[in-house]
């Protein structure tokens, strides 16, 4: 019984991966500044502390690695354990790689023959897989991105081009050119348009070893831009979220958008 309950709870957590802000999702690369023919290894987890593995792994099903020339690279040696997932990325090209986990989906629950049912899928499957006699149908849509960036040699921007779907970050300052004591600027887009008045939270790693969360709460300007001051070198976590009604199926009332990224800030 307990196991069954737990299974349901885990199932629910998986169904609404971006519902809770209590846990932080992140990708943590072993290096962000590297050279051609080197490798980086990346940890992927959902945790309370940054950047410790203390809750559940981040699943790698929707992992997409974009090479400097815009092509896709397959992750090597993927592994998902109790608390984290891990994978390696060979840096064969010169330039910037984008490592992203993009969860884009519809979530439904309904009743059929007196039983509650849950469903997860895309707009195409939605039309065929939800039975005609479904009662009390509730549908929500979410697009969530968890990203990080790694550069071999000189930073480039081809891999950072937005897909213009959901909430995305594009560089004003290159995400692998961040230094303590210097301000960096990023622009946020929703479906390719500047996301004004968006709340952005930035937090340095190492929360286990301090009392204060040290969150920086920022808001984007009319151009969707935000300027971030990095007080000290280290790994930083950034999160932004928004909601709108631009759903892909009419049964879904709301679309939830989220964006998370990990940045490395270097000393001068």
């Amino acid at each position, binding site marked *: 019984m307990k196991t069954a309950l737990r299974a349901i709870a885990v199932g629910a957590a998986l169904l609404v991966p971006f519902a809770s802000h209590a846990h932080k999702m992140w990708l943590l690369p072993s290096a962000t*500044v590297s050279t051609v*023919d080197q490798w980086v290894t990346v940890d992927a987890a959902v945790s309370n502390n940054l950047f410790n593995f203390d809750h559940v792994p981040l699943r790698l099903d929707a992992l997409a690695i974009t090479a400097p020339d815009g092509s896709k690279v397959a992750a090597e040696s993927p592994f998902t354990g109790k608390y984290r997932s891990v994978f390696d990325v060979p840096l064969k090209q010169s330039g910037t790689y984008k490592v992203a986990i993009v969860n884009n989906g519809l979530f439904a629950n309904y009743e059929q023959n007196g039983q509650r049912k849950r469903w997860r899928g895309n707009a195409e499957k939605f039309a065929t897989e939800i039975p005609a006699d479904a009662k009390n149908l509730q549908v929500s849509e979410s697009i969530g991105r968890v990203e990080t960036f790694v550069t071999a040699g*000189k930073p480039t921007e081809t891999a950072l081009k937005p897909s213009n779907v959901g909430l995305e970050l594009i560089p004003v300052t290159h995400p692998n050119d961040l230094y303590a004591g210097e301000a960096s600027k990023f622009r946020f887009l929703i479906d390719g348009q500047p996301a004004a008045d968006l709340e952005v939270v930035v937090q340095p790693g190492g929360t286990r070893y301090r009392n204060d969360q040290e969150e920086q709460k920022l808001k984007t300007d009319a151009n969707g831009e935000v300027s971030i001051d990095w007080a000290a070198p280290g790994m930083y976590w950034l999160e932004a979220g928004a909601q709108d009604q631009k759903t892909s199926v009419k049964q879904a009332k709301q679309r939830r958008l989220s964006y998370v990224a990990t940045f490395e800030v*270097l*000393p001068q």
Partner: protein
Amino acid sequence: MRRVAKLASAMLLMGASAAAFGAELNLKLEIPRLDVAEYHRPYIAIWVENQDQSTAAQLAVWYQTDPKKEDGTQWLKDLRQWWRRGGRELQMPVDGVTGATRPAGTHALSFKGADKHLANLAPGKYNVVVEASREVGGRELLRLPFEWPGTQPQTATARGKSELGAITLNVTP
């Protein structure tokens, strides 16, 4: 009229580089002897920096070049400031700039205004930057200001605390 102006500015430019033609930049650099269990010779980059910290000229980069050992270029990024300011854009090795790591002791470098390192350096104020990074050790960066080519001999000195010893820069016009 315009042609005259162009001619005049061309002469001015020629005058400028001719003025620096006989100039010299000499650097004495001490790599300290360190009493540590595991010692590796430091990677060292030496370059000329503009006032806005962009790179004006590459002078020297010493790194692990032995082909029998693992590829030394992978650690060049640890010369962090140099890497950011142009190192990451270079194809290694660079003729006349890069070379093998050097042992502890004092090393002398000499560059003439006519050398390719400095031939394109416009008259003005600069820094010589020396950055050192050692495997399983520390990192240190020092700046020595100078004017190129200047009107009289200049000397600047700096002393590191950990990875670099005494550095003396002499510039003669």
